């Protein structure tokens, strides 16, 4: 991996890694009387480990070719591997917490393995670990290919990728240690948040600088979405995590937002994390890998424009629909509800644009499970955006809120849309990146597809049933005007659905493990493809222009 870096770049890398290790030492010393000290040691080992790797090949031969004549694929390859590792970890944690709901004894009576600590390791593991690494890897790939330019940095892509993973490690290990700021999807504490700001701003600068180098007159739609994803996630992350630590030697901090404003900022963040992390970023993926795999032009450029601006504008207003019937003023709730409904058409326009792009390639959808992954992802995207707008309507929300329906909705999006588009994209990307003629086994891709579809459907149907039953039980009154059921009655009614949900999740996890094996064997044991030009534009190679 270091063979592509010059000696001065290796020095930068070594200085950066050593600085991280030293920051870890400082944290360990200042936080020695707190769990912060444990995180100091983790940071120190992470930085030290990378410094050691850099040093072991520090004096190796330097690159001799003109590097601008090739794309920079090393960080992408590592990003794909990390993404799959996090997928297995995060999905395993998901199956475990799902099983805990059916069989609480699976917490084994320990603090670290209690539901409250494991649940965020699942959400962070899959959203940031699996999804985030996949987004970083594919965005690096897409921006280079669609700009016909190499990434605008040699060390910075590594800094972004590895720095992001350090954040994920701090977040997940922190939950197990009991460190959390109790904001959903933003649980990591102040020092991890500050680190992510540095990493994310670097990511943004790197991305913009690469776009600026492009040799194409236009910026492709996928890059609009990736840029929206990177820019808005930075804004959301910074504003929601504004907090004061109780001291520099402690992990604990307090948010600067008071009361209901804290709730509003949190759900403005939370909903736009769904919008810009889990939607915009993955739409960037869809817009590149789906037409490449289908070998079809995008159905409508005009529809792309409508859906892009609709999505980025309307989503920003929708967060308050998470706080219907709460202390949040009624007028803020109405805004959230109406903008959520206006968001529906731009969302469906994206899904429709993807599906109509497949016109003329439906025979490929039938024969090629990789393309079918992406087709199914577009269907689930349409389904869950319709469901989301529907659930944002206040009277509907009064039934669905706080029930498993919400969990089912999230997983229709997370499993059906985010994970399926990622697997489809990775199965397209991996052979091309490692220059193999195909994936190791088309049959295993097919098996993975059906396991993922079956797992998602079982999960989502179980949660729809369970959520609606739960919501109805909570609002059923006797003739005398008293509640008909106690809360624990509703839990008893959930039990079979909890088992079904854990089973659906298990199928999905098995699919991901098969995907890991297939990717591994593609890299290790699949013949090289016949050489195919996959390099930035060479002016001399286009004679007569």
């Amino acid at each position, binding site marked *: 991996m270091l063979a592509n870096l010059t000696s001065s770049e290796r020095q930068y890398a070594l200085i950066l890694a050593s600085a991280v290790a030293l920051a870890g030492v400082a944290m360990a010393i200042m936080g020695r009387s707190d769990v912060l000290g444990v995180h100091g040691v983790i940071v120190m080992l992470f930085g030290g480990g990378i410094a050691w790797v850099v040093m072991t090949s520090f004096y190796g031969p330097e690159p001799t070719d003109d590097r601008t004549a090739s794309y920079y694929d090393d960080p992408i390859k590592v990003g794909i591997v990390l993404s799959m590792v996090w997928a297995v970890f995060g999905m395993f944690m998901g199956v475990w917490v799902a099983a805990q709901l059916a069989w609480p004894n699976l917490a084994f009576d320990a603090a670290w393995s209690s539901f409250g600590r494991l649940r965020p390791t699942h959400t962070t593991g899959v959203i940031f670990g699996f999804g985030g690494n996949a987004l970083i890897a594919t965005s690096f790939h897409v921006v280079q*290919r*669609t700009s*016909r330019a190499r990434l605008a940095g040699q060390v910075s892509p590594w800094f972004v990728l590895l720095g992001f993973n350090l954040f994920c490690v701090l977040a997940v290990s922190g939950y197990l240690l009991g460190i959390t700021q109790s904001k959903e999807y933003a649980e990591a504490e102040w020092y991890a948040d500050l680190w992510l700001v540095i990493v994310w701003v670097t990511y943004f600068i790197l991305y913009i600088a690469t776009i600026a180098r492009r040799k*194409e*007159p*236009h910026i*492709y*739609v996928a890059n609009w979405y990736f840029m929206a994803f990177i820019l808005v996630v930075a804004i959301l992350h910074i504003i929601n995590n504004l907090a004061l630590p109780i001291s520099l030697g402690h992990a604990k901090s307090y948010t600067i937002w008071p009361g209901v404003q804290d709730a509003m900022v949190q759900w403005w963040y939370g909903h736009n994390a769904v919008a810009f992390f889990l939607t915009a970023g993955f739409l960037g993926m869809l817009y*590149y890998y789906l*037409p*490449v795999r289908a070998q*079809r*032009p*995008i*159905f*409508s*450029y*005009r*529809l*792309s424009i*409508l859906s892009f601006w609709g999505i980025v504008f309307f989503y920003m207003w929708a967060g308050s629909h998470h706080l219907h*019937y709460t202390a949040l*003023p*009624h*007028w803020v*709730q*109405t*805004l959230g*509800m*109406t*903008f959520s*409904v*206006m968001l*529906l*058409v731009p969302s*469906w*326009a994206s899904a*429709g644009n993807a599906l109509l792009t497949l*016109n*003329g390639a439906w025979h490929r959808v039938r024969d090629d499970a990789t393309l079918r992954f992406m087709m199914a992802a577009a269907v689930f995207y349409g389904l869950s955006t319709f469901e989301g707008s529907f659930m944002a309507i206040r009277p509907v929300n009064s039934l669905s809120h706080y029930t498993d329906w919400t969990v089912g909705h999230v997983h229709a999006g997370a499993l059906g849309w985010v994970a399926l588009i990622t697997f489809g994209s990775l199965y397209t990307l991996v052979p091309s990146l490692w220059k193999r003629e195909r994936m190791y086994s088309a049959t295993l891709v097919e098996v993975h597809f059906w396991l993922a579809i079956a797992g998602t459907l079982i999960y989502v149907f179980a949660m729809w049933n369970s959520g609606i039953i739960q919501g109805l039980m909570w609002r059923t009154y*006797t003739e*005398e*005007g*008293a*509640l*008909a*059921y*106690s*809360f*624990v*009655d509703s839990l008893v009614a959930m039990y079979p659905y909890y088992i079904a949900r854990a089973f659906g999740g298990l199928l999905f996890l098995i699919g991901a493990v098969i995907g890991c094996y297939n990717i591994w064997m593609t890299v290790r044991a699949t013949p090289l493809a016949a050489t195919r030009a996959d390099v930035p534009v060479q002016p001399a190679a286009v004679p007569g222009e």
Partner: protein
Amino acid sequence: MAEVERDPFTGRETTGHEWNGIKELDTPIPRGVLMFLIVTHVWAIFWWFLVPTWPLGVTYTKGLLGIDQRTTVEAQVEDGQQQRAPWTERLASEPYDAILSDEALMQTVRDTGRQLFGDNCAACHGRDGRGRANYPDLTDDDWLWGGGPELIEQTMRVGINTTHPESRIAQMPAFGRDQMLDREQVRSVSAYVYSLTRTDYSTPENLDRINAGREVFASTCAACHGETAEGDMEVGAPNLTDAHWVYGGDLETIIASVHGGRQGHMPSWDERLNTAEIRTLAVYVHDLGTAQP
């Protein structure tokens, strides 16, 4: 940059953009999309006129319907209370005898009490009220502080070993740990108590120990549990001669109770439930205990 070309499958022209082989068609936005876009916007604007929506500095547009969630929920709470008033008022005020003899009202108590019990009591006493290890069974008609509805109401209001000023206080001292009894005395008195419910334990080889235990019991335990070990509900001392045990009636658990003592806790519900709810639960729990076949 590619030239504008015609896609053979759809017959549409491309935009002329190309990125690494990806092209785009110049398809106009389908009419249905625009129609649907208008429908959702009209729907939204419709709501903006009807209900509170747009901030105006320190105030906001109130909407033509004049709805606000706070007044709505207050009205709903009021409605609910009125719907329940016919029976909640009776349960809150009428003497227990009148309630117990009114079969229709008792049916209401059994329906609503089940939900109240499930949300407030079941965590310790179980959904069916049968208790579990360390938490008393409420269905066996064997009571620590009395099973009449008045007494159950009092226990619920003040709790057991709580900070409520009138809390019921009961403590079984740690006779062994605090060295009020020596090791042999703990064992013998435990054997005696065990023999009260397990007649098969009174074999010739155990008889000496049981007799020694009887003396220890008379001097040490009888003050609370009574000469006959049948307990005393005035002080919350359990009957030791029946088959019902809070902490367990096997010899080892009895030894543990005598050695380490016991001090249970039941919260005070005065602040949390209203009078009608407490009295409903008192009747419900009383009914659980006496309705047993």
